[in-house]
C-alpha cells in the first residue's frame, strides 16, 4: 500500500467540518448526526449503498440543501448552522453523476464559467490550462453535445477545478461511464486531484473506486457514519458488521467468548474486553480461509466457482453453515469432497452478536 501523504497533514485545521448534521425528507431520515472532517489536500470518499445519505451530505456541504440541525464549516468559516452561506458564496466545485455541462456554451466557455473575477484573458488562460490538465485541451471549441460521456465528465471536472475551489465535491462522477473507462478514469482522477492539490469529497457506492481514489473512506448507511479511516483500516479492521459486510466479502461465524477468546466452529480467535459467555460473530474474509482434502474432514465441498486467478469453494461445515473459501489458483476439488477448513490469518474481527449496524 502507498503511504498516503494526507495523513501527515493531520495537524492542520480541517478544510471541511460537519458537526452533528441531520437532515430528513418527509419521514425519511437522510442523515443522522453526521460529524466528519476533511483535511486540506485530502481525498475523502463517502462510501455506502444507494440511499445511504451520502449524496445528501455532499449537497449539504455544497449548500444545495440546508441541514435540519448541525453545523457545516468550510475553511474555518461557518456556512450552515448558526448562519447560512448560499452555494454561490461557498467557493466549492461540484461534479455530478450525470453530465451537467451548460448546453449553450462551448467547452472552454463552460470551464471559464466559474472564473468570475478575473480578466477575460486570465479566464481563458486558466480555463485552457485546466482543460489541458484534464486532457481535454483539444475539445475547447466544441459544444457539449459533441462530446462523449467520458469527455463530458473530464470537462465537468475541469469546470469544477478551474476556480480553485476550497473543496471539490464529486457525486458519483464516474458511474455514468462504462466499466473499462471508469477504471481508467479512477486513476486519472486521483492523479489530477493530487497535482492540483485539491481537497475533495467523492461519493460512490463502488468500493473498488473508493479504494482506488481515497486517502480516507467514510462508510455510511441509513444516514449514519459507521467508520472513517484509511482504506486498509476499513477493509481489515471494520468497526461494525455492516462495514465488514459492505466492504469486501466476509463470512460471519457465530461463537461465544470463553476466557478471552471467541470459540467458533473453525477454532478460537483472540478477542479483548468481552466478558465470558457473550455471544459473538467472528468476521473472516474468504481469502483468509484455507482448506485441504481430508477423507474424515468435518466439512464437504458443495460448490465451486472458477474466477480465473482465484477459485471460490462453497463448503458446508459440520453445523450445516455454508462458508466461502477463496483459493488462489485451483485446488481441483470436486463438489462432494470432504475437507478440513481453517483460518490462516490473524486478521479476524470479533463483533458482539447484537451489532447495532444494519445488514449490508
Amino acid at each position: 500500500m502507498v503511504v498516503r501523504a494526507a495523513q501527515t497533514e493531520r495537524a492542520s485545521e480541517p478544510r471541511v467540518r460537519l458537526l452533528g448534521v441531520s437532515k430528513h425528507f418527509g419521514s425519511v431520515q437522510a442523515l443522522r448526526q453526521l460529524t466528519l472532517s476533511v483535511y486540506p489536500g485530502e481525498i475523502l470518499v463517502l462510501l455506502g449503498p444507494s440511499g445511504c445519505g451520502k449524496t445528501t451530505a455532499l449537497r449539504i456541504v455544497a449548500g444545495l440543501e440546508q441541514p435540519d440541525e448541525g453545523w457545516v464549516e468550510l475553511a474555518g468559516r461557518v456556512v450552515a448552522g448558526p448562519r447560512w452561506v448560499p452555494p454561490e458564496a461557498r467557493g466549492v466545485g461540484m461534479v455530478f453523476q450525470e453530465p451537467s455541462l451548460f448546453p449553450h456554451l462551448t467547452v472552454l466557455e463552460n470551464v471559464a464559467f466559474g472564473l468570475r473575477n478575473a480578466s477575460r484573458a486570465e479566464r481563458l488562460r486558466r480555463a485552457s490550462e485546466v482543460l489541458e490538465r484534464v486532457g481535454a485541451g483539444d475539445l475547447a471549441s466544441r459544444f457539449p453535445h459533441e462530446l462523449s460521456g467520458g469527455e463530458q465528465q473530464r470537462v465537468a471536472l475541469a469546470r469544477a477545478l478551474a476556480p480553485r475551489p476550497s473543496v471539490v465535491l464529486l457525486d458519483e462522477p464516474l458511474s455514468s461511464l462504462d466499466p473499462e473507462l471508469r477504471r481508467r478514469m479512477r486513476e486519472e482522477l486521483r492523479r489530477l486531484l493530487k497535482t492540483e492539490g485539491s481537497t475533495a469529497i467523492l461519493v460512490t457506492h463502488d468500493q473498488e473506486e473508493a479504494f482506488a481514489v481515497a486517502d480516507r473512506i467514510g462508510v455510511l448507511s441509513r444516514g449514519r457514519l459507521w467508520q472513517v479511516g484509511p482504506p486498509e483500516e476499513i477493509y481489515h479492521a471494520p468497526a461494525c458488521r455492516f462495514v465488514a459486510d459492505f466492504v469486501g466479502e466476509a463470512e460471519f461465524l457465530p461463537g461465544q467468548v470463553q476466557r478471552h477468546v471467541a470459540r467458533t466452529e473453525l477454532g478460537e480467535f483472540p478477542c479483548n474486553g468481552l466478558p465470558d459467555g457473550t455471544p459473538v460473530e467472528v468476521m473472516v474474509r474468504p481469502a483468509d480461509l484455507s482448506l485441504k482434502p481430508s477423507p474424515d474432514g468435518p466439512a464437504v465441498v458443495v460448490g465451486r466457482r472458477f474466477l480465473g486467478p482465484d477459485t471460490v469453494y462453497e463448503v458446508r461445515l459440520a453445523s450445516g453453515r455454508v462458508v466461502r473459501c477463496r483459493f488462489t489458483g485451483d485446488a481441483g476439488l470436486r463438489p462432494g469432497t470432504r475437507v478440513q477448513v481453517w483460518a490462516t490469518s490473524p486478521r479476524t474481527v470479533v463483533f458482539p452478536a447484537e451489532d447495532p449496524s444494519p445488514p449490508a
Partner: protein
Amino acid sequence: MTAPGAGRGAGSGVWFSARQGLLPACGAALAVALSLPVLTVAATVLSPAHGEWVEFVRLVLPRYVQNTVWLLGGVGVGTLVVGVTAAWVVTAYRFPGRRLAQVVLLLPLAVPAYLVAYAYADLLQYSGPVQSALRAWLGLARGYPFPEIRSLGGAVFVLTFVLYPYVYLLTRAALLEQSPLTWEVSRTLGYGAWGTFLRVALPVARPGIAAGLGLVGMEVLADFGTVKYFELDTFATGVYLVWFSYGSVAGAARLAAWLVGFVLAVVAVERLSRGRRRYHRPPGPLREARPMHLSGVQAAVALVACLLPPAVGFGIPGTYLAWMAWVGGDPLWSRAFLELAGNTFALAAATAAVAVLLAAVLAYGVRLAPSPVMHLAARVVSLGYAVPGVVVAVGILVPFGWLANLLDPYLRRLGLSGAALTGSTFTLVYAYLVRFLAAALSTVEAGLSRIGPTLEGAARTLGHGPSSVLVRVHAPLMRGSVFTAALLVFVDALKELPATLVLRPLNFDTLAVRVYQLASDERLMQASTAGLCIVAVGLLPVLLLDRAVHRSRVEAPVEISGAHRAEVRLTPPVRFA
C-alpha cells in the same frame, strides 16, 4: 425545435417494405390538401398587382407596417417579461400557493383576445366605470391625463396579458426539461439565483422561449378583433380592408403573403442565430431541481407576481363580463343559445379529433418511413399556423369557389351543391385543420420521439407487426401527448372567429360569431353571455392541460431525498418549417 424523432426513427425505416408506400402517399396527399390555402395565397405574389387597392396600399402600408411592428415588439417584450418571469418563479421557487399559481397562470388561454379588449375598452374609456369613479372622487373636469385604452398602448396591454401564457407554458416546459444540475453547478460556481437564471436557465430555455414568442407573434399578426375594436391599423386590418372594402381578393392575399414571408424570415433568423448549439436534454432520468423555499415577504411577492398577470388577463375582464352577463346578458337556456353552444362544441371537438388523427398519421409516417417527401409534408402542413384566419379563408374560398363551380353539376346529382365546398361545416373543419394542425402535429411528434426505437424493435422481435406496435406500444405511451394535442386544437378552434365568419354554413352560428355580431352591433352586455360561455368551455381544456402537464410526471426515486423526479413533459406545440 429540432426533430429528435426524425433522427432516431431513421433506422426503423428498414423494417418496412411492403406497406411502406402507403404512409408517404397519405402524407403527401395530406400535405397537398392542407397546404392548398397557404399556397394559393403565396401564389398571388407572382401575379401582377393592379386595382385601386394598389394605390391604397402604397398610401397606408407604411403606417400599417409601423403599427404592426410596434405591436409585435410591444407584445413580444411584454409577454417575454411576464411569461418568463412567471415560469421561472413557479419553477425555481417554492412558496405557499405555488401550485395554484401554476394553474391560474394558464387561465388567460381560455379567453379570446377580443373579449378582453371589449371588456377593457368598456371599463377604461372616458364614460366607463373607472374614469367615472375617478372623476367623481377627484372632481376632475375634461382634459385630465388618463391613458387611452383604444390605442397602440392599449392593444399592447391587452394582447400581452392575454398571450403571455404561451411564453409561460413553453418556457416552463423548457425550464423543466433542463437538467437542474446545471443550475446547481452554476450556483456552486458562484452565481446566485438570478445570476443562474440569466446566465444558464434563460439561455438554455431559449428555444422554448422563442417558440412561445413565435406563437405570440402569430397570434398578434392574426389578431383582428382587438385591433379592429381599438381602431388600430395593422396588417390584419389591412388584409380585411383590401379584401372587403376594395373587394380585391388578390390584393388581400398579396398583403397576407408578405405577412407570412415576414414571419418565416423571423423564424429563420432565430434558427440561424442558434448556430451549432443544441439545447436538447441529455439522456438519463430527469431530476427536478430542489426549488428554493421562500417565506414571508418574499413568498408574498412571488405569489403576487404570479397572480397579477392572470388577474389582468383573466380575472378582471372575466369578472366584468360576468357582471354584464348578469345584468343584461342573453337568456342562457334559450334554445337558440343551447344550439350555439352545441355547434361550437361539436365543431371544436370534431376538429380536435380529426387533427389528432391526421397528426398521428403524419408523425407515424415520418418515423416509420422517413423520406424527404414525408418530412416536407409534415413541415408544409404546419405552415397554416403562421397564417391569420382571414387569410386562410381567402385561400380556401378562392380555390374552393372555383372547384365548386366545376363540380356543381356532379354534386347536384348527389343531392349536394357547390355550397358544400364553400360554406359548410366541412369547410369550417378544414379551415381549422389548416390553421391548427401544427399544434397537434408537433405535440404528437414530440410524444413519439420520446419512445425509443429500441422499444419498437423489442416489440417487433416479439412478433408484433407495425400496426400491432402502434396499438399496443405506441398508443398507450402516447396517450398523454395525444390528449394534449387534442386539447390545444380544441381550445384554438373554440375561439376562432375570422375564418368562421366567412366560411360557416347557413343557419349555423358559433358562440364566437354571436359575440362578434352583438359586439359589432354595440350590444356588449348581451354579447357577454356568449363570451362567458366560450371562456367556460375553454376553461375545462385549459385545466385539463395543466393536469396533463402535472400528471405526466413519472415518479422515479433517484435518491433518498425523494425530491428528484423524472418527468415527461409538454413540449412546445409548434415548430416551424
